């Protein structure tokens, strides 16, 4: 009996020790708050399905922060350096909120940048809003700036605006080549990004009196694309608008071209505007159009630093995250403080023109009361020889669009 009782006790105390250790470890504060530095939180999906986009975005932020530090840091704070605290949100909103809470509690970050995926950004914003800390993002689901939050700042246009631009720009490009679009096809993945952008496309088509002859959602990660392509062929559409991430975009375009469907394809950013698209499709990529939130050829003098350092062209999520970093640095400079209230006021008040802001359409960043950058206009890009060339709107275009009806 005695040994049994002792065994019971010991088992528990051993367990308790282990548990206490495991519990305490993550909370031992990691305050690396060096004098004269400003901690900036970066939350991105660095593992899981969106890891590549997360890594691109992190590279963009890293580049911008290094440039700011090399140029003498935040001058109004005595040359304080930007100190990035990078955290992996994975693909799970619960984890994204955990890391946001951690950066705020333990690292005293003055603002958070991220998190590429709209659902992650929305989840994080529930924390930053309650804590009054600015969240700068390039996620663009309509809800992000549609909830009346005061601490969120979105440097690009909204999803519904992007979807509408994807349609309107296409109509204009077709018209400029002498074709009147009458029948279009929409296919989109059934995610937040796919459905909200498809909504914008539908609105655009309705307003222009264009018939949507095919309107199909498909599950993310679809493996057999043939039924969709067959439907597209028999629909008689003059152009197709696929909205998808990389793998699906490769499947769709490859299947279309292999089956000899040559109608123009106008992608919805994401999978259509990254180097892997051209790598995966080779000659089939040539001439594919896509809407984009910004493009590297609009500011080659800035984006060259990225391709020199990382070996691929500066994809839009990298560019826009660099813009987030740049805007934040300028706001801290103007506020002469990292105090949340002053920083928020500076973000709302300023028109940011320096640094990476010049790479955005409109050449600057300015937020309205909802935190939306009012100057950002989506652009249409086209694949030419493994490069993305801005072809619309005409006033910023680097080349004329090629439209083969």
């Amino acid at each position, binding site marked *: 009996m005695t*040994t049994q*009782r002792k*065994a*019971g*006790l*010991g*088992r*528990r105390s*051993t*367990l308790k020790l*282990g*548990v206490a250790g*495991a*519990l305490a*470890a*993550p*909370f031992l504060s*990691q305050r690396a708050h060096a004098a004269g530095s400003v901690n900036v939180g970066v939350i991105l999906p*660095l*593992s*899981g399905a969106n*890891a590549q986009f997360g*890594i691109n975005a992190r590279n963009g932020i890293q580049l911008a922060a290094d440039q700011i530090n090399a140029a003498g840091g935040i001058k109004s704070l005595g040359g304080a350096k930007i100190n*990035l*605290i*990078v*955290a*992996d949100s*994975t*693909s*799970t*909103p*619960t*984890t994204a*909120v*955990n*890391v946001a*809470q*951690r950066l*705020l*509690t*333990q690292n005293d970050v003055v603002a958070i940048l991220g998190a590429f995926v*709209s*659902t992650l950004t*929305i*989840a994080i914003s*529930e924390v930053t809003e*309650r*804590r009054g800390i600015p969240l700068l993002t390039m996620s663009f*689901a309509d*809800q992000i700036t549609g*909830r009346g939050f005061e601490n969120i700042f979105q440097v690009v246009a909204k999803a519904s605006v992007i979807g509408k631009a994807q349609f309107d720009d296409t109509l204009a490009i077709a018209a400029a080549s002498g074709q009147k679009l009458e029948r279009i096809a929409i296919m989109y993945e*059934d*995610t*937040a990004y*796919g*459905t*909200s952008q498809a909504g914008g496309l539908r609105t655009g088509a309705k307003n222009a009196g264009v018939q949507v002859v095919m309107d199909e*959602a498909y*599950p993310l990660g679809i493996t057999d694309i043939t039924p969709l392509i067959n439907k597209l062929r028999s629909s008689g559409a003059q152009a197709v608008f696929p909205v998808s991430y990389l793998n699906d975009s490769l499947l769709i375009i490859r299947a279309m071209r292999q089956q000899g469907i040559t109608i123009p394809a106008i992608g919805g950013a994401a999978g259509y505007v990254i180097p892997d698209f051209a790598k995966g499709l080779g000659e089939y990529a040539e001439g594919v159009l896509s809407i984009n939130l910004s493009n590297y050829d609009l500011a080659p003098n800035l984006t060259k630093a990225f391709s020199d350092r990382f070996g691929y062209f500066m994809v839009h999520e990298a560019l826009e995250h660099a813009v987030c970093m740049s805007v934040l640095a300028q706001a801290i400079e103007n506020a002469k403080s990292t105090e949340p209230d002053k920083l928020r006021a500076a973000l709302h008040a300023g028109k940011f023109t320096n640094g990476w802001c010049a790479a955005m359409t409109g050449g600057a960043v300015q937020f309205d009361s909802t935190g939306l950058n009012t100057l950002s206009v989506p652009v249409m890009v086209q694949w030419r020889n493994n490069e993305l060339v801005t072809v619309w709107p005409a006033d910023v275009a680097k080349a004329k669009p090629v439209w083969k009806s």
Partner: protein
Amino acid sequence: MKPALKYALIALALAVAVAVPFGLEPRGYATRILCLVLLFAAMAQAWNIVGGLANQMSLGHAAFFGIGAYGSTILLVKYGISPWLGLLPGMAAGGVAAWLISLPTMRLRGHYFALATLAFGEVMRLVANTWGGLTGGPSGISVPFSKPGLAVFQFKDMRPYYFLMLAALLVVTAIFAGIRHSKLGYRLRAIRENPSAAEAIGVDTTRTKIIAAVVSGALMAGLGTFYAQFQFFFDPDTVFSIPAISVRVAMIAIVGGVGTTIGPIVGALFLIPIEELANQTFSDQAAGLSQLVFGLLLIVVILAEPRGLLEIGRRLWRWRGRT
């Protein structure tokens, strides 16, 4: 162990659990992680009723979790019904769903049951994703921001959540322990040891398993409401997630010690902080390293002792006793 000692230990553990948050910053990160530990312990405990007592490896418990989360949140958003009231229809829906899915699947054994439940969770995700008018579709659903308070189940600080999660864990654990020591519990264990023998001595195996599944599903749905009010925003991919909910709750129970009363609690106390620690230590290094390290740790634990951490603790003690 003598009952007196056992109760003393339980009382001590409770006292520690109640005292802990007062030593931590109330709005902070540590309290949030502890909330998740308690929530996931409760979820794993609810799973344990089916997975542990009846040995039916469900990999679809996210279905009930999501039903509860959506149930109360939809009632709140559309009709302004307090989540405390919404909790009940959510739990009822979770129980009914568990009953419906159990009717055909509880006749399956082993891998087939696991696969069937896995598919059910995925079907629920697709339903929520497609039925946009009701659920908000893939864009997700937000709990409306309101003035914090107990009545609306919203708090500014983490501390009230901590105590609610603790209460939830205690309730679920009490139900689990109650079932375990009841006639139902003995029937379930008879089924676990040998279904054919159980049937031969007159246990209605299918009915017994269905009762366990309904209780488990309803509790899981109730915890879904807790999650919704804690996280404020979710989408179908989050609450019906296979890796983040279904597999994780099973994993917590298995790593802790499946079928035991404190196994899920030990599992959650171990897994949730370890995952955070891995994330915190490695996520600013190579991308994805944190998840890799976490995965490797899990593999090591299960290779070392497939019966879980409780068993490792026992073995450690025996080994120490010998030297």
